[in-house]
């Protein structure tokens, strides 16, 4: 009795260990994808990559093969559609020397295209292909295989039963050889394809779907893991881009609730505003600067950047409104000198047209900048332009991800918002990110008589005291200057935005 129990216990422990260890995996080497797949593709198993034309599935297959080849693991690429020369050229444009890997027998390209003029009389099989592949596997010791556009082959069969039989034969063959395989399949129409190739989904151990969609003339690429036998995986839809180094998937790994607590105060770059904010902003938090056009948002942000750079910190300024040159020259008049900061490499200005690329590309560039520049602070000017990346949703996606990335890294994040109407508070709430914003500074201007009066108020400053009054200010040749000293006695604690009726 006791022995049995012990044995059962032992078995249990072994089972747990096995489960914890998980199935053996092979990394794809594709940035972000291995994270989504929790390590990579199932080793010695079949992974199905499905997607429409131009969705990037072939490139994904090629990239993973190149990665393994570069690591010394030989692989075969079977091309049912593309010519080998075209693939070599594609690889070259992404910075890979495919020919060199071929010479070292680490990669073998096999054109398997069947002429559309081929006359078919009666039944046939793919035995020839398998015989050739067997030969290559033996010669080069291949462990990996990518079969591109397998559907082209299947279309030769006019019977779904035969299609299925041949695919099963192929799958059996792959398993027998212990190859880590990727098969790509074109899905043509959303409603037709799943039924036609549904059995493929059942057959494969891992199924990844990629697609490219166009919203408001801007194309975005997405990837989703449909299933992964014996493994956990990221279940969301992940944006990816095809950049200069190939495919990069942007996984959502950040959890808003796991951010480190905000750090000590950091000066706003304006002594009087520091007084209003009880010492300044908090490091590593998010700050929204809201105001209509010409209200001084950029000036306020640049004053902060200048002060930070003077302290020896680095600031990344993502500008969607103007070029670095025009920003520098526009800031000369209010007395903010950015050129020396840029020259010293402390202020990095990156200007982009929002509509020039899809949201994932913008996101990729921003995240890359965070990880290469390692700034202490980030300014995005202005987030109201982000809608032009495609849609409100795209803008939200971008802002959320950048904000999360900043919070994870303890970076102070400034979002500038161009308000269009009078009900500024409603506008802020409309962007949908106000709840995770830590501090809000509102700038407003209204005509009194012949002049314009500018006012500033701190609407919110989480976990910190701040003034609740409007403060009149001017934009002078020494930057923003408050007309009256801040009355510290009116400070109060605030944790949320005041009511909507106030603007």
């Amino acid at each position, binding site marked *: 009795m006791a022995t049995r129990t012990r044995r059962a216990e032992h078995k249990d422990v072994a089972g747990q260990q096995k489960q914890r260890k998980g199935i053996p995996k092979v990394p794809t080497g594709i940035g972000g994808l291995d994270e989504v797949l929790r390590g990579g593709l199932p080793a010695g198993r079949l992974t199905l990559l499905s997607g429409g034309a131009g969705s990037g599935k072939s490139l994904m297959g090629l990239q993973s093969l190149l990665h393994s080849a570069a690591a010394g693991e030989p692989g075969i690429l079977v091309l049912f559609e593309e010519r080998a020369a075209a693939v070599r050229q594609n690889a070259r444009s992404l910075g890979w020397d495919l020919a060199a890997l071929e010479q070292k027998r680490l990669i073998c390209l096999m*054109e*398997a295209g*069947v002429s559309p003029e*081929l*006359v*078919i*009389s*009666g*039944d*046939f*099989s*793919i*035995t*020839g*292909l398998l*015989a*050739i592949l*067997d*030969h290559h596997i033996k010669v080069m010791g291949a462990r990996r295989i990518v079969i591109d556009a397998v559907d082209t082959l299947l279309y*030769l069969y006019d019977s779904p039963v035969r299609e299925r039989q041949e695919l099963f034969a192929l799958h059996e063959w792959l398993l027998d050889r212990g190859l880590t395989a990727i098969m790509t399949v074109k899905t043509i129409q959303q409603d037709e394809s799943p039924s036609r190739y549904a059995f493929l989904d059942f057959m494969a151990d891992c199924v990844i779907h990629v697609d490219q969609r166009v919203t408001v003339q801007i194309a975005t690429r997405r990837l989703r893991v449909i299933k992964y036998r014996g493994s956990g995986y990221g279940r969301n839809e992940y944006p990816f881009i095809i950049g200069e180094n190939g495919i990069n998937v942007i996984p959502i790994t950040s959890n808003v609730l796991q951010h480190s607590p905000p750090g000590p105060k950091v000066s706003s770059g304006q002594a009087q505003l520091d007084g209003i904010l009880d010492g300044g902003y908090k490091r590593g938090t998010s700050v929204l600067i809201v105001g209509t056009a010409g209200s001084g948002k950029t000036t306020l942000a640049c004053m902060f950047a200048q002060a930070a750079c003077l302290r020896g910190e680095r600031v990344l300024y993502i500008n969607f409104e103007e070029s670095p040159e025009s920003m520098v020259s526009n800031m000369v008049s209010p007395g903010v000198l950015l050129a020396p900061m840029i020259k010293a490499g402390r202020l990095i200005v990156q200007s982009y047209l929002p509509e020039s690329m899809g949201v994932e590309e913008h996101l990729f560039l921003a995240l890359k900048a965070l990880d290469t520049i390692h700034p202490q602070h980030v300014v995005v000017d202005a987030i109201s332009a982000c809608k032009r990346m495609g849609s409100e949703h795209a803008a939200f996606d971008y802002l959320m991800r950048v904000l999360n990335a900043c919070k994870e890294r303890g970076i102070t994040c400034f979002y500038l918002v161009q308000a269009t109407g009078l009900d500024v508070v409603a506008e802020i709430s409309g962007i949908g990110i106000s709840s995770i914003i830590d501090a809000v500074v509102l700038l407003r201007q209204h005509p009194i008589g012949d002049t314009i009066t500018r006012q500033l108020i701190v609407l919110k400053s989480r976990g910190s005291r701040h003034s609740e009054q409007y403060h009149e200010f001017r934009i002078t040749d020494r930057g923003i200057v408050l007309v009256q000293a801040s009355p510290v006695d009116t400070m109060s604690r605030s944790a949320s935005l005041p009511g909507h009726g106030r603007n």
Partner: protein
Amino acid sequence: MIKTRRRAEGKASVAGGTAYTFRLFVAGNESNSTQARENLARLCEKHLKGRYRIDIVDVLKDATSAFKYRVLLTPLLIMIKPRPEASVLGNLSDTKKVLATLRLTGDAQ
């Protein structure tokens, strides 16, 4: 390079430009391949008696030739002579289609 098995019926000694040369790629004794072999032999005997030669290539034994000629699907019939080359994929069960592809429909005897 190609290991062939000549069919006794189609004497290779037939001289002149009228000779037909076929290369049939098969995969061992797979049923499709066996059928193709039989169908081709019957068709040749009927239409090209004494004027043809058939080389059989088994891709399971000779992968190099299969790769050289890019034979991925079997059985595959290639008519080497007369030029231009013509090929038919499958077990050759559709005699009419095969004859038409091999340009044997009109002048066939």
